[in-house]
């Protein structure tokens, strides 16, 4: 397919999600342009996390379409979505807590030769690849300042380190688009700022596009290019950061003006 430079990387077209009688996401359409940092905000229960789950195909859509690079990914399984280039972080860090930091980041590397059970016992067949992946992991871990902890069990990390490890783990899959669900939840304020600095570097150095659910608006507003506001499953407002920060609707949902 010829690539249209104007075409957004991710397009949501009227997506909807019902849980039983509850409509968690109602007719939401939004675009994420290539190379942008896009924020998704809204009060608790407004459907932000559900939206992330829908894009990553962790749950099924009730209606609508998700287009990635112009391809309809609404019917793919979550492993296929990852392999297309969409990685996601979780609100509660979903690490492999009983595995080391290094094993955590090596697992998502795509198409590993040693992952075929028939070849797995023959070390020689995959050892070279594995060493190369380990080199990549060294770079990625160094970038998030976890290299010294490569042999630590993930459960022994601090909350902030867990968040960073999760981002590092996503990076190893070489994603084009990274979905992050509250990357600073449960993290001290100073560290939260550092996490966002790391996130900005992903865009600047690696060209990764980001869609971030975040409740620390003041930090998000420092880094995001564009912001969508959700409320009760609907898209309430959207715009550039400056417009959104002073937008009456945002103040409405957060403060009740």
């Amino acid at each position: 397919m010829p690539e249209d430079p104007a075409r957004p990387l991710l397009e949501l077209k009227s997506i909807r999600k019902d849980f039983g009688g509850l409509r968690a996401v109602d007719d939401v359409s939004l675009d994420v342009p290539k190379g942008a940092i896009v924020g998704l905000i809204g009060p608790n229960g407004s459907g932000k996390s559900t939206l992330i789950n829908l894009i990553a195909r962790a749950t099924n859509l009730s209606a609508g379409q998700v287009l990635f690079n112009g391809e309809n990914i609404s019917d793919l399984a979550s492993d296929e979505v990852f392999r297309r280039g969409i990685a996601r972080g979780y609100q509660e860090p979903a690490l492999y807590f009983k595995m080391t930091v290094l094993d955590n980041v090596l697992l998502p590397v795509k198409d590993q030769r040693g992952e075929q059970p028939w070849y797995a016992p023959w070390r020689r067949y995959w050892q070279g690849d594995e060493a190369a992946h380990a080199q990549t992991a060294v770079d990625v871990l160094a970038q998030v300042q976890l290299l010294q902890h490569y042999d630590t069990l993930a459960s022994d990390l601090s909350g902030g380190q867990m968040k960073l490890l999760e981002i590092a783990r996503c990076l190893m899959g070489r994603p084009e688009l990274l979905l992050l669900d509250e990357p600073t939840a449960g993290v001290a304020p100073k560290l939260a700022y550092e996490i966002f600095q790391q996130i900005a570097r992903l865009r600047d150095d690696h060209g990764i596009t980001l869609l971030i659910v975040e409740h620390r608006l003041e930090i998000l507003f420092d880094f995001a290019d564009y912001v969508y506001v959700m409320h009760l499953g609907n898209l309430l407002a959207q715009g550039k950061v400056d417009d959104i920060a002073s937008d009456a609707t945002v103040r409405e949902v957060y403060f009740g003006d």
Partner: protein
Amino acid sequence: MINIDIVATAIAVLTLFGIYSLMAISLNLEYGVAGVPNFGKALFVSIGAYTAGITYTRLLPLLSGFEVIHPCGPTMGGALQLRSEIMATQPVAGFINLGLTMLIAAVIAGAVGFALSYVTLRLKEEWFLALVLLVGGETVRIVVRGADDFICSHNGISSVAQPFYFLDDPRTSSLLFMLLALALALLAYLYSERLIRSPFGRMLKGLRENEDVTRGLGKGISLARAQIMLIGSAIAAVGGALFALNTGFVNTNDFVVTLTLDVWVMVVLGGIGNNRGALLGALLIALMDRFTQVGAIALNMSGSDVEFNYVRFIAFGIILIWMLRYRSAGLLPESRLTTGAHDVVRRVLEK
């Protein structure tokens, strides 16, 4: 006092250890490493045993140029005699038959395990898989027990023999059989150690820890689960074939839920996720089995009425609960085995 033949006891215990090791390693791969709750271990073991029952009565005579005698009912004695004759005079046919038995058993059990793992995809709750496998094993057992021509329904089939039957000295032949069992166990151990320390093993551990996340990281988890069920089931079936050769007959009553529990106890006792733990568990249960037999004889000879076998099961239950409660990681907890990537990183850091 009773005389215990130490050498014979040691051979018996070690043979049992080899057979149990195969079963324990297979469950450790499935549950310990990949987190698949195979409560149908008896089914896969029994597939190996039933295969042996059939090959030794139908295939063996063909291999050595005889007509097959129906092994059930009135012709049973004739079939048994024919088997003895072949096994004593044509060791090569015996070995070929053994190899084919293991191959067929592994293929059938592997295919069944592969197929059954896909059942999980349809199940509402994760533990239903445990129930389906448990119940599936019993169903197969009942069907086999009901089928007259298969392994002679509830009478079982007794025309199975171990491959060194042709040797004159029974002690040498059982010693060689012990070595065969131990060699196969060692092979399975080395193979599964390598598997665990590979990227495939890492993916399985990821599957165990968090299925959804692993899928979200681009891994085809249904296939991985099916593959490990295939491998585990094939190993268990080889264990089952050896089990049949060791006892000399195949009877459906040997493959009840208790056998599954035995294997689980081995893994829980030794250490979930640790192959050496599985071996230790297998050894302890093999010893326990043997000493129960010796103890039962000793107890009876001392004039006591108490059935020692019952005490064995009670002790079994208590050990299991005690382990689950106080040492849920087992005697040898899982080690942090890795692929060698850690060494690469360590070298980079040292530079």
